[in-house]
Every structure is written in C-alpha cells, then in structure tokens.
C-alpha cells in the first residue's frame, strides 16, 4: 500500500497496465516528455519509450480517430484529451464511431480503448477548463462512462477500463487530483465497472453523487449528522452502464433522495436517477427527489464557487427532503 493522490494513482494505474500489456499505448497532447499538463503521464515515455507514450498533433478528432483504428487493429490505446472541454471536436469520432463500431459491424470490428480526460470545476478554469459533460456521453449507446472519486478507485477503475472490451470514457475529477489522498494497493487490481460504492451508511436520506462532488457531500453529511440526520451516500462510479438495481435499493432504503452533480441541471444525470426512482419505486418515496446541480448557464470563472454545488447547498437539500 502506498498513500497516493488521485493523480498519482492514475499515473500508477497507467504504468501497471502498460507493464502488464505490451499492446497498451498512451498518447495525446503534451503527454510525452512533459508528462501531461497535470502530470498524469509523468515518466511513461522514459519507462516505455516514445513508441508507447507519445505526443500527437493538437487535434482531438485525430487523437480519437487514430485510437479507434489502433484499437480495431489489435492495440489497446489509452488516449488523453487534455481537458474534457476540448473533447467536442472528437464528439463525432466518439459518438458516431467508437460507440457504434461493434453494433454496426455485428462485432466484426470493435474499439476497446480508453479516453482519459480531466473534467469539472474548482481550478478557476472558466468556461473552457471546467465543464462536466457526462450527460452527453452517458446518453450514447455503446460507450461506457466512468468517474472515480478516490485514489483507490481511480487506479482500480482505470485498469478495469483498460481491460474492458468496449470503449470507455474515463472522466477524472481534476479538482480532486491533488486534494485527496488515500491508500492504493501496489501492482495490478481492478474495481469492477458498473458497481456502486457506499461512501457512508445512513437510514435517513440517500445522496447519489460521483467525482468531485463526493467529498462535498461527505462534508454536508457530517454536518447533517450533527443535527441527527444520517445520510446514505452512494458514489455511482460508473454512469454507463449503471447499477440500476443498486440505485433503486439505496433509494428504497431511506425513501428520501438527493442527487448531486456539477453539470447543469436540465437533462443532467440527476434527472435520469430521479426518473428511474419515480418509475420503479415511487411508492417508497417519502419526499420529492431533490437535485443539487450546477446552473443551466455556461461555467463562470470568478464566481465558480457559487456555481459549483457546495456543502451549504447540499445540506440545504438534505434538510429539505428530510423535513418534508
């Protein structure tokens, strides 16, 4: 066991996967000798050579397009998109190509690949270094979407994503890169995709969250506990395919639900969780389901701390559904 930050755990996961599987390779903008703008790929070119960790031209659709061709021809590409905000030139390659290749060829061609990308706010990045686009991608059949919130899960989910036979969008909460530390096992291990993590057990209110919102919710739950409200916090970890049964069980266990994400509210991931609960287990609900989210606006810079759900807003929603 080593005590690592989340970004160190990502780096360790990449190294372990690349040592285990010679067909893996890492590429993207500035991922080579520089080691990436967040240093997720630090040391990879040194250890594995420029053939297996290299810089590409500044073109997201080129990065993902070439990755698909490599994946379809026997390699396991791990492509980095420097900021999730810059992924949209590759939207066509991800949505029209990687996600549909198995379906449209009846499995003759597949794209087993991982797209790693830092997402979310909290670093004063403004409109174009802060966004959370998980809803676009969770809405895309054929694509898996994974978001870790701890160093342990970051490494284990990343290795599971690399081993997965389908394309995986691996969204890393950049606000947590260096702000969380945790015990991370040495060597290779996986955290199974499509499994939930119970962060905190509680009988009163269930809070669904993921990524950088998990520690925010934990702080709000600790405060709520001081006034006797016990929260059941569920870290979704894999948004597609989601463990729906696990979500419904967790919702039923308290009958009071809050969902939390940074992304805008309208058609956001919380809406899907809310609809799923309403469709399947509404008879267990004791209160309306509340969403705590970013606003339906572009992401602001100076006032980002007001845009991002914070402990205060989460606590307010917990108290509201508890007292309903």
């Amino acid at each position, binding site marked *: 066991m080593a005590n690592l930050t989340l970004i160190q755990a990502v780096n360790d996961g990449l190294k372990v996967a690349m040592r285990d599987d010679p067909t893996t390779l890492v590429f993207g903008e500035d991922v080579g000798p520089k080691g990436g703008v967040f240093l997720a790929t630090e040391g990879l070119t040194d250890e594995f050579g420029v053939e297996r960790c290299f810089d590409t031209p500044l*073109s997201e659709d080129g990065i993902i*397009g*070439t990755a698909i061709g490599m994946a379809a021809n026997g390699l396991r590409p791990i492509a980095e998109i420097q900021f999730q905000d810059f992924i949209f030139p590759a939207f066509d390659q991800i949505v029209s190509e990687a996600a549909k290749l198995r379906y449209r060829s009846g499995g003759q061609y597949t794209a087993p690949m991982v797209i790693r990308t830092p997402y979310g706010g909290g670093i004063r990045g403004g409109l174009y270094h802060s966004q959370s686009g998980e809803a676009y991608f969770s809405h895309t059949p054929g694509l898996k979407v994974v978001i870790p919130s701890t160093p342990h899960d970051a490494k284990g989910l990343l290795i599971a994503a690399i081993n997965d036979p389908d394309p995986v969008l691996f969204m890393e909460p950049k606000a947590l890169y260096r702000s969380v530390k945790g015990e991370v096992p040495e060597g290779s291990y996986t955290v199974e995709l499509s499994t939930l993590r119970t962060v905190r057990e509680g009988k009163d209110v269930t809070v669904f969250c993921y990524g950088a919102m998990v520690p925010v919710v934990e702080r709000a739950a600790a405060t709520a506990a001081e006034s006797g409200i016990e929260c059941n916090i569920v870290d979704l970890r894999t948004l597609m395919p989601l463990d729906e049964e696990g979500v419904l069980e967790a919702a039923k266990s308290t009958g009071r639900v809050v969902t939390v994400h940074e992304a805008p509210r309208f058609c956001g991931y919380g809406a899907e969780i809310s609809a799923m609960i309403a469709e399947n287990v509404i008879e267990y609900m004791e209160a309306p389901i509340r969403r705590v989210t970013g606003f339906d606006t572009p992401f602001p810079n100076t006032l980002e701390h007001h845009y991002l759900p914070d402990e205060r807003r989460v606590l307010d929603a917990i108290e509201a559904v508890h007292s309903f």
Partner: protein
Amino acid sequence: MDSNEAHSLIDADGQPRSKFTCALSDDELKRCFESMLAVRSFDDICIKLQRGGRIGFSIPNTGVEATQVGAAAALRDGDHIFPSYRDFGIAIHKGVAAVEMFHNMFGNSRDAAQGRQMPVHFSFVEPVRFFSISSPIGTHIPQAVGAAHAFTLRGESHAALASFGDGGTSSSGFHSGLNFAAVMKAPVVFLCQNNGWAISCPSSRQTGSESYAIKAKAYGMPGIKVDGNDVLAVHQVVSEALERARSGAGPTLVEAETYRMGGHSTSDDPSKYVPKEILDRWAALDPTKRLRGYLESRELWTQEWEDELVARLSAEHAAAAKEAEVEAPPGLETIFSDVFESLPDHLRKQGEAVFDLARRKGDAAAGEGAFPL
C-alpha cells in the same frame, strides 16, 4: 510527377500512351475487366431492386470502377481497407461474394451487422479486412492511420488504404488524418476518388485549391493525380504508394480523376444538376471501354468472352439477390445485442419489455418466446 497532370497509361480508346508500362499479368488484366463488369452488374441489379421497392436504397458505382478496381488490385493480403460507401469495386475485386453484399443490401439475418445499417454500409473481415462503413464523411480517414500505425508498431509490412470522395477532402477527418499520418509516417495510402460531385455540390464548392492532390504538399507527403478511368494507371500509382508506405517512407495522397455517371444515391435525381454535355464527355472516357480497347489490342478480349462474362455475372448476381431476399430478417433481440460485448442489465430489461409487450399485445416479430439474450 506533376500533381496537376493526371498520370495516364492508356488513351480514351485503350491504346498505350508514351512511357507505357504495365505491371499486371494477362490474367490480372482480365480479372480487372471482370471485376469492373461485375460492379456494373451488381449496380444494375441493386438499382432495379430499389426501383422495385425490394431494397430501400443503393449507391450507384457506375463510372468509377477503374479507380476502385485498380486500387484493389494493388493491395496485398493482410492490408486493411477503410472504404467509403461508394466502393463496390474494392469489395468485389478483393473477392467478397456477391451474396454477402446482398445480405447487407437486404439487411437480413446473415448480414454481419444484422440489418442495423442502411444498404451499402458493408463490413467484412473475410476474405479481406474491409472496415465497417460509416455514413459520416471522412471519419474513417484517421482510423485508417491508426490501423496503419499498429502495423508499424508490430513490425508488420502491411499497409492501410483509406478511400473517400472529393467531398471527403473538406472533412475534419481528412485534415487530421493526413496530418497525423505525415507526422507518424504511417503506412497508409489516401485514395481520393474525385468523381466530380458531393451529392449535388461540384468540386468548385469543395475547394479553392487548384487540385486535391496538391493539398498533400502542405501535409508533407507526395500527392499524385491519376487518370481514374485508367485502371492500369490507378494500379501503378497506388502500387507505388503502397510500396512507399511499406518501406517506412510514409503516406501518399492519390487523387483519382473519375466521374460519377449515376446519382449520388437512388434517392437522388442528378438530372437536376449534372450537365448532360459533361456526362457525354465522360461517357467517351468510360473505364470499361478503355480497358476493353487495351485488352483487344493485346488479343486478350473477344466479344464472345465478354458476352459470356456478362451473362454469368448477371445470373450469379440475380441468384445471389434471390438467396438474400428470402433469408429471414434479424431476430428482434438483435436490437439489443452488440451494443456492448456483454448485455448490461438496462438493455436486458428493455429487451424483456419488448418481448413481454409482444406476448400481451401481439407482435409476430417476437414469436412466442421470451427475450433470448
């Protein structure tokens, strides 16, 4: 070679020009002719099937056969093809059976993609890696580069061929694909089939450049313009480009000047926008006519041989179409399979709901059974 002068080996009547060479054997030449006739036969049957309402759609390939067949003849075993939707000739010349193509045209249960795609969106792994065709334009160009780079990393001497039209050169995939290929020195050949039209938009609406081939220069690779209705010239130019790729010298852009003699698709009426005099000019440069002329001058062609060929191809294709037409449609469960390697719970639930509704409200497509996945 000057990028503005299309490389050509035979003239409009199939007679050798000066500096003529031919690397194809007599048998290969005759096989190219057969494939070009096969494209025309397959094309004709598909258009008739569509006009008769028996298939929903087709893409006419008449006029561009020499480009497709010449390029296909230059490929070797192990090379990967990243085709566009107008590439019948590549599939046919590489030995894909007509019935396999018809399974896709009818979208039946023997179609690799289980009828999920429109007609002409083929996918084959045998007898050749003919990559699953996508409708968005140019997305396959960087994919071909990635596949080619995989050959390099494994030390294999294969190459990839990416085929696209003149409209494809305007796509972001063309730019990123050529840029990446040149930077990575990937063993890939880009075949631009300049057939004059992107649906109804002429070349003047695609580029302000003096040619497509010349764009290669700025990317850092050779760009060669070839007479796309001269199968010998296309074969020679693409062969040299593939050899260059295999030797590690990097990619090449080939612009084949040809002409789409039919519509964009069976849904298109080209008489609204294609001037008749241009069609007449290109009809005089018909690729089968030119190869016929060359073969005849070499005493490799007789009318009887061609008549037999046409009759055999027509009968084979008609039989293949009939075989595919009577094949069962894909099972209802194939809506849900192949989204992921294994079926996730939410898709299982959605599939079960379809079959449950069929039991309660009726739907013959679901039969009597439960969701089988």
